[in-house]
């Protein structure tokens, strides 16, 4: 899937924004909002923090748009900014002692056999995800949920491909262990 599937449109929107058409930025915000929101909510485990990080990332990206060296890859570049904002926000939240807050409103239910069962399952998954270290959680989400290639992840996170592969592997092992343990309880 990647994060540059709408490259042509992004190029045009970025060109217009750089040309002084501020309204064109609304197109980019609308295009990337939901996908980035999913990452931020899962990464931070808290809707309020996620929205703050997301808003900040969009504004920072606008202010620094001249530094986006390839408009066709605007999405990947924006992801990099959000990943950093989430790291900062996550570190701040950790200092406050907030690790995981159940937030039903953040999840938009899809048709399911049992809403109660679904919510319970999602809570367990999010609880397990929150028990990973931020580095492992970040790598797992980018690889398996956001579907990024390792090379793209390396550009977004600043970590090496080998380190990222190791983090994803460890994250999967830990998630399995945590969830298996939860099933036994």
């Amino acid at each position, binding site marked *: 899937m990647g994060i540059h599937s709408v490259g042509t449109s992004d190029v045009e929107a970025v060109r217009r*924004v*750089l*040309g*002084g058409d*501020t*309204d064109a*930025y*609304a197109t980019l*915000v*609308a295009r990337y*909002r*939901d996908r980035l*929101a*999913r990452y931020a*909510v*899962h990464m931070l485990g808290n*809707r309020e923090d*996620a*929205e703050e990080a*997301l*808003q900040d990332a*969009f*504004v*920072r990206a*606008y*202010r*620094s748009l*001249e*530094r986006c*060296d*390839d408009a066709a890859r605007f999405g990947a*570049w924006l992801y*990099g*900014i959000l*990943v*950093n*904002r989430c790291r*900062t926000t996550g570190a701040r939240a950790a200092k406050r002692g907030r690790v995981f807050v159940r937030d039903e*409103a*953040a*999840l*938009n239910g*899809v048709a399911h056999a049992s809403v109660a069962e679904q919510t319970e*399952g*999602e809570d367990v*998954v999010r609880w*397990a*995800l929150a028990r990973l270290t931020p580095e492992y959680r970040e790598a797992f*989400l980018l690889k*398996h*949920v956001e579907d990024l290639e390792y090379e793209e992840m390396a*550009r977004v996170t*600043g970590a090496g491909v080998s380190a990222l592969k190791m983090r994803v592997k460890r994250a*999967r092992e830990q*998630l*399995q262990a945590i*969830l*298996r343990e939860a099933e036994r309880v």
Partner: protein
Amino acid sequence: MFEPDEELIGRVVRQLRRPVTVDAGLDARVMEQIARLPARRPGGPARAAWRWLTRPRTIRLSPLGALAIATVLVAIVLWRPDRRSGPASARAFGFVVVAPRAATVSLVGDFNDWDAARTPMQRTRKDESVWTAVIPLTPGRYRYAFLVNGVSWLADPAAPAARDDEFGAPSSVVTVGGS
């Protein structure tokens, strides 16, 4: 796709891939915040061409090549001439970098919107390997970097590194105090 015992991970991934919604007012808040920022200066073809020429590019170097470049690119600390220019509260700050093999060096930072066209550095007369730029800065904290030959981002090793660099390129920090 998943290995044995990975059915569990597959279920986790399917759950996490479900759509997430955020406050519907987020778009409006972003656009409101942006509207309060200084307006962008529209750029013409020349500006676009310059941006293309000066955009950062990744270059691959052998360890020996990297070492050679590292040995010739040594930044010197900032100096602050005792003169004032620009707005009343601004002070002139000098930036210096040693880059003997560079054809062009630009100073880019928060103070010029990271626009490589706005602050080209000049070679000094005494030593052509030394590049300088003097700009007025009002009190505040600024991130900056040097753009060598329009392709290589270079942080100032003599200054603190920016810790919140989310753009993927190294940068430094200068803090200008009030007087």
